[in-house]
């Protein structure tokens, strides 16, 4: 539990990001609060449309100007929300770096990877051209690209998908960021390559003391990589806690259902637990709990009264009006099998 002593680098309080007309806003992220400590990997897990990527982008202010961000994003005590573009740019890429899902479309196809790395070095460090080249080789080497020196002059299309993601990570690391935002960095990759990239992110976080927020839809990725996890649904957090605890003993009906719909320790070819219905659209979110329509234990108040994220055991938080009923519902189901 050395994590407890590490300093908190990022605090997000009541983050709200909305799009569209101010009178009829589409709220993509609603009242989301979480903290990240140095050297910690936080998993932000949810389905498509749950607001996990928008949360990440809101931190760096790259949803603006079309998205309206409110709340507090305290980076080392300083609020990023009111900053203008020029001041944000000094934080972006230098202290907080980001990697994306599609390494091919995030790299410039017309520039060599060496140039793309030294571009970032020139923007964020004082190194001269020669030192930048040496540092670029060092970075490519660090992210596990073989024969790094010979590959500086190669273009993105000459790399495979996994190697491109490594190049992306090398560019992100160029400025020695203290926080890495990773938006589904392995979703486009095969399991064997995904495994390599996740182990790399883990090692970098451990060795460089870098905090990481990893956005993913895959509970397995969270289980294998993250120290803590925050589960999102309909733009809100429904459960947070240490990864092992949440996976072993989830409390929110959505995380309970999600974990049970993944086949493990069940007889082959038996029906899997399935959450009925589909995730809600942004313009059809209820005033209360976003999961109400699909929840097996929802009561009449759930539709109107928003459950707040409340402490539920050590370092854990759950947002649900019917915690006991949810646990009872799922354990009764399990006993019946």
């Amino acid at each position, binding site marked *: 539990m050395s994590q407890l002593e590490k300093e908190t680098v990022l605090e997000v309080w009541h983050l709200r990001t909305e799009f569209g007309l101010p009178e009829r806003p589409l709220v993509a992220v609603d009242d989301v609060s979480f903290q990240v400590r140095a050297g910690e990997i936080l998993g932000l897990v949810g389905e498509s449309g749950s607001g996990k990527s928008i949360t990440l982008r809101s931190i760096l202010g790259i949803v603006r100007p079309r998205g309206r961000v409110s709340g507090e994003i305290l980076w080392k005590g300083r609020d990023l929300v009111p900053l203008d573009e020029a001041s944000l740019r000094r934080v972006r890429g230098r202290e907080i770096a980001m990697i994306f899902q599609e390494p091919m479309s995030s790299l410039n196809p017309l520039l060599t990877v060496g140039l793309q790395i030294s571009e970032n070095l020139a923007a964020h460090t004082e190194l001269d051209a020669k030192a930048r080249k040496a540092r670029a080789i060092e970075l490519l080497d660090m992210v596990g690209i073989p024969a790094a020196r010979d590959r500086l002059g190669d273009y993105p299309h000459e790399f495979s998908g996994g190697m491109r993601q490594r190049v992306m990570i090398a560019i992100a690391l160029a400025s020695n960021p203290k926080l890495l935002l990773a938006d589904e960095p392995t979703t486009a990759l095969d399991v064997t390559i*995904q495994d390599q990239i996740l182990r790399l992110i883990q090692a970098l976080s451990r060795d460089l003391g870098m905090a990481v927020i990893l956005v993913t839809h895959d509970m397995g990725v969270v289980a294998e990589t993250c120290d803590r996890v925050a589960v999102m649904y309909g733009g809100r957090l429904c459960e947070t806690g240490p990864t092992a605890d949440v*996976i072993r003993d989830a409390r929110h009906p959505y995380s309970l259902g999600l974990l049970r719909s993944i086949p493990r320790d069940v007889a082959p070819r038996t029906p899997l637990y399935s959450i009925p219905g589909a995730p809600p659209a942004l313009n059809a979110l209820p005033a209360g709990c976003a999961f109400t329509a699909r929840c097996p234990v929802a009561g009449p108040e759930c539709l109107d009264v928003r459950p707040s994220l409340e402490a539920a055991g050590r370092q854990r938080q759950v947002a649900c009006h019917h915690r006991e009923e949810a646990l009872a519902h799922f354990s009764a189901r399990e006993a019946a099998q």
Partner: protein
Amino acid sequence: MIESTHQAATPLLSIRDLFMRFEKRRSLSDTLTGRPRQVVSALNGVDLDVMPAETLGIVGESGCGKSTLARCIAGLHRPTSGDIRFEGESVIGLKGARRRGYNKRVQMMFQDPYTSLNPRMTVRDTLREAITVHRLRDGAGIDRRIDELLELVRLPDGAADKYPHEFSGGQRQRIGIARALSLEPTCLVADELVSALDVSVQAQVVNLLLELQDNLGLTVLFVAHDLRLVRHVSHRVAVIYLGAIVEIGPSEALFSKPMHPYSQALLAAAPSLDPSERRRAPALSGELPSPLDIPPGCPFHVRCPHATELCSREKPALRPVGNGMTACHFAEAIGGA
């Protein structure tokens, strides 16, 4: 139990020595310099028997040829050489009525629910087209059959007269299943049927597929990269590497005790939901070699931790090992360890 009946039965589909090569177009500079045409070897001698009413899972990394195999079976590609027999009769080069007869009995379902349905046709039009082309019903019988099919895949009332964009991803995959079932097929080829869907919706579609298969006695080829899901739905599983089967066997046996070093690495790389199983080192280093230039000998030897000089020289044949078949010179020693 299912295994013993399979031994006695004759296979529904019997694939022998299947090769599929795609020739790349020569660029002008290639022609001028007299370089030979490049050939992508997608399938390199696949031998496979599919038993009636079984689910055969096909797994492998992207680019290994699993979709090419599915497409060859569904008649969407004409293989370069080799034979595919359906109920004892070769289906390569079938024409006219006999081609249509085979197409009717082997139906394919596609990965992307957004591009595999015609956006300008209502669900009724899509299903009616299939039914009338094969003259399965006429007059009022067609509409009765459409209602029957939609009930079978549990789409809501009134779905027939809607367009694809009015449905969610999960519902669209149900339309794809209904379209395949409209021809009363014997065999379904499911190419990544649920990989485009959210986790909470995947279970619904998988449950539907399992139920339909049991009720209608269908044979299913389940091509997917999600190993947990493949393990859950399949009776037998084939692992493909660079266009050849490296291991095939009963699902539980293969997943609990893989014999081929590639199957072992693939299973180890898949993210486990148990955080205590975390590893620091990746399960498999290196990447899939290009199918333009397949290594001689065992195609896996360049990445295999157990490879010897024999492996780079001689291609191992698929032979009985344990409960299944494995193509590795040292399967007994490696699988037993």
